[in-house]
């Protein structure tokens, strides 16, 4: 029988199982640490709050910070084995396709993480609320929940950051988070400088400051129409362009970065 060299469900299942078995201890320890940190942070915050009732919205900053912190650190370790020669050989020569290996990593760092994170957060909230009502007879009340759009925005940012870190992990298996953040900083700086250079050429002598430009959004120019007053006008890029860019940022860029990470994995050598 001809072997499917891209995706074969039983082989993918075997690889997924192997991945979980190999990392089970690490994942369980991480889960315990995550619940512990959430409970500790929650309790510190709650006990420094004298109110009779605690609003659920009080938990949101913790929720967001740990969602990003834990999620991105976890994603940063995605391809750590490729930073070690012997582990890299074991990983690359295991008879599963690059797609199956990548898909396993992607599912575990997105669906798997989000699932476990919410279980951990729910558990921590339950433990924290229990301890609180036992010690101070203080209760959580359900109001001031964030709007759906705010949560959506949070997740768009999270997926964007996850995709960047995953790609970074494929490029820099060792110290991936630090190296990726540095690379992102350099890229943003370069985009800013190139944009500023073009804007200075296009609006020569009209910019309020040589760096008064926001890449993709607009440029601040001095208004000389009234000689006795000084005004600056922010020229925005067209709305359709900003909407298109926002759409790309949310829905095109994360999958594109995942695809790049997949091809980087395919091209990986020891």
């Amino acid at each position, binding site marked *: 029988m*001809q*072997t*499917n*060299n891209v995706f*074969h469900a039983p*082989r993918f299942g*075997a*690889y997924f*199982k*192997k991945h979980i*078995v*190999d990392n089970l201890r690490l994942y369980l320890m991480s889960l315990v640490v995550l619940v512990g940190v959430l409970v500790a942070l929650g309790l510190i915050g709650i006990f420094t709050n004298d109110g009779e009732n605690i609003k659920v919205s009080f938990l949101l900053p913790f929720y967001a910070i740990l969602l990003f912190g834990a999620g991105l650190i976890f994603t940063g370790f995605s391809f750590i084995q490729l930073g*070690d*020669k*012997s*582990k890299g*050989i*074991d990983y*690359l*020569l*295991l*008879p*599963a*396709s*690059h797609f199956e290996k990548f898909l396993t990593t992607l599912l575990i760092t997105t669906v798997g993480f989000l699932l476990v994170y919410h279980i951990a957060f729910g558990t921590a909230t339950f433990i924290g609320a229990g301890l609180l009502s036992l010690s101070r007879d203080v209760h959580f009340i359900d109001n001031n929940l964030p709007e759906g759009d705010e949560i959506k925005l949070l997740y768009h940012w999270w997926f964007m950051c996850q995709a960047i870190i995953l790609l970074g992990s494929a490029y820099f298996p060792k110290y991936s988070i630090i190296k990726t953040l540095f690379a992102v900083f350099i890229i943003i700086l370069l985009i800013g400088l190139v944009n500023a250079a073009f804007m200075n050429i296009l609006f020569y002598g009209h910019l309020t400051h040589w760096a008064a430009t926001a890449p993709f959004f607009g440029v601040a120019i001095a208004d000389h129409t009234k000689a006795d007053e000084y005004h600056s006008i922010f020229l925005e890029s067209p709305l359709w362009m900003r909407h298109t860019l926002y759409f790309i940022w949310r829905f095109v860029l994360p999958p594109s970065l995942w695809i790049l990470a997949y091809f980087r994995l*395919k*091209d990986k*050598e*020891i």
Partner: protein
Amino acid sequence: MITIQNLHFHYKKGRPLFEGLNLELEAGHVYGLLGKNGAGKSSLLMHIAGLLFPKSGVCTVMGYESRLRQPAFLNNLFLVPEEFYLPQVTINRYVNTYAPFYPNFDEKAFQQYLDEFKVPRDQKLTEMSYGQKKKVIISFGLATNTKCLIMDEPTNGLDIPSKSQFRKVIAAAVNEEKCIVISTHQVRDLDNLIDSIVIIDNHKIIFRQDVETVTERLSFRSVKQLGEAENVLFAESSVLGHSIITENAGGTPGRLDMELLFNAVLEPSGRINQLF
């Protein structure tokens, strides 16, 4: 089975490791890949396994281009690297998670190899010495029954009795469908094990012959005085006398001194190569 055509490779520009290297290896043989330190033995094995990509040229195994690392290629190739990784699990769990990827894995044979190496099955891999772990990965590699088995310095870290056990298990595993390539710089470890010799030097394969052809054409012996022998092609002196290579006038295959052959092939005069 393994075809390498016009392979060019370098780690750093201006310092080539392979320049137009060509090699053809067939099933049913145990090849000994020999070379000096830094000659590129491990890098060549990495190319065969698809862990390094040629700068130009092609490396195919069983018709698959190695660099693509397709599952149909990987489940018929096993590499025992010099520096290997085994997860922190028991042997049984290792087998349960890795064996499903190798369709021809033979559980019974794996146990036999472990027994031959005297490795207890119930021991945790973390509790084992380097040599014991090496025996486990060699046993697993043999039990996968892949058509292509590559070993990089497999006898490093094995004690003297284990080296003869190694020769025994390899000899038992050879068959007409299997191509085994063993790279080493400890040539004596491969005595009576390999049937073909491949020597790599100066960015190329400089020697590739069957052991039988070598012993038919060359005679390896020791003499007290160099004058005792005529037409000496190569000689090495030691405390006990001289080890020499002469042409095998009778053509009857004799014993092979692989270390002597290796040193003779690397000699700048190239006299040995001219005979093949």
